């Protein structure tokens, strides 16, 4: 295993300065790097800031009433924020269907 990890494929450069190679290991590593890069992008999507994070309880309650989101029975601002996000997602899906 260690042998494969330390293997350095033979590489060249084209006149544009890009690294090129015929070595299958080079191409395999490049595919893995691209896959990992895509994975990082996905995780970045999950970390998108909540647009309602800066609103306090009163502001959230007013916003929910204004948009007609039912928050009855909810005890925390976190639950209200989730309800607003769910409403956003539902609206977006409806728009897409139209």
């Amino acid at each position, binding site marked *: 295993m260690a042998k494969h990890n330390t293997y350095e*494929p*033979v*590489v*060249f*450069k*084209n*006149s*544009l300065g*890009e*690294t*090129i*190679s*015929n*070595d*299958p290991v080079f191409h395999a590593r490049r595919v893995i790097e691209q896959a990992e890069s895509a994975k990082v992008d996905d995780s970045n999507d999950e970390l998108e800031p909540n647009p309602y994070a800066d609103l306090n309880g009163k502001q959230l309650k007013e916003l929910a009433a204004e948009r007609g989101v039912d928050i009855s029975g909810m005890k925390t601002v976190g639950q209200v924020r989730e309800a607003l996000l769910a409403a956003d997602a539902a609206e977006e899906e409806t728009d897409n269907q139209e």
Partner: protein
Amino acid sequence: MPTQVNATDLIAWLKSDSLQSLSSFAGAEQGFNERADVVRAADGTDLNDFWNEVQQTIRIRNQDRTGIIDALTYRVNGISEEVSVPSEVDFEEASEYGQPVGIRGGATRLFRGYDFKFYDLAVRYTWMFIAEADIQQLQQHHNLALEADIKLTFRKVMQRLFNPLNGNGFTDKNEPITVFGAYNADGEVPPKYKQTTFAGSHNHYVTNGNAAIRPQDLDTLATLTEEHGYTLQNGYRTVLWVNKQEADIIKGFRTTNGAKFDFVPNPNTYGGAVWVPNNGTYVGGPTGTVKGEIGTYGPFHVVEEGYIPAGYVASIVTGGQNNFGNPIGIREHSNPAYRGLKVIPGQRSDYPLLDSFYRKGLGTGMRHRGAVAVMQVSAGATYTVPAAYDPAAG
């Protein structure tokens, strides 16, 4: 109220000496312009004769291979072929019941592929241009097309020589086939030669690790091809192609300066001067000369060639003009009618000069992967494709 002209008067006027009449085209029997009447240059040259000349020169040019391309290449007309490389066979100890192992062709045979594309170029003249042009103008365009043909072939061959990346060709059934460069660490294990074995990472595109060419760099290049069996003793001729920049340095290589061999100048280019080796004795070197040779160094015929980029040297084992043993294959069409440079009459077949196409179909591929080694003169460790011959540079 326009003047009424009857048909007889109209024909008489058309045949008169006025500038607007048909007589400006000499000979207009029965109102039709004959081919010989119109297709004539301003200096009186019959353009049909010129057309024949075009065809003849194309034929000559197709036979007259340029030395630099022919020393490198061998014409093939298939998508792939089997190539033999230097190899050996062994006896085995005989057994009481068995049959001895057979010699399979006496050589290692490997499949090599070639790409292929058609290229074209049009020459178009208006009839007015032809009416005014003299033969030199027409010949100039034709010569430009011939020059473009040579440049195209040369560029394709040199790209295959200097570019380490494998490419793709396609069979008649559109199946892809690998087009190889010289050994380039693509995983193909070169066949064993004598006691030398190789790995799939074997590579013939290297740097010398120094800002200038040194004698030991040429020894390295010689080893790269000789270890595969392409040696002087085996009857192979090795040419070292260099730019003037490197040639000027190589001319100074002497055993007294630490080099393994003396550079021996080509008598034909030595201007009548007397050359005496350092120890006063000339033992010998590669015999004969190749086109453009400035001298020999060890096993190499050193050729100074302006088309080789400065900072690169290429070692090539060659068998001669269009020789079967040459390392690069130039693929031509399987149909003989489509081989070489062709001139095709355009839309107007009666007047081919007005609108004609030059067409060339070719592709390249490395046949003998161990018979070529390219070195970049660079302190860096990574070989960089020269911009002049890099397909990636467009």
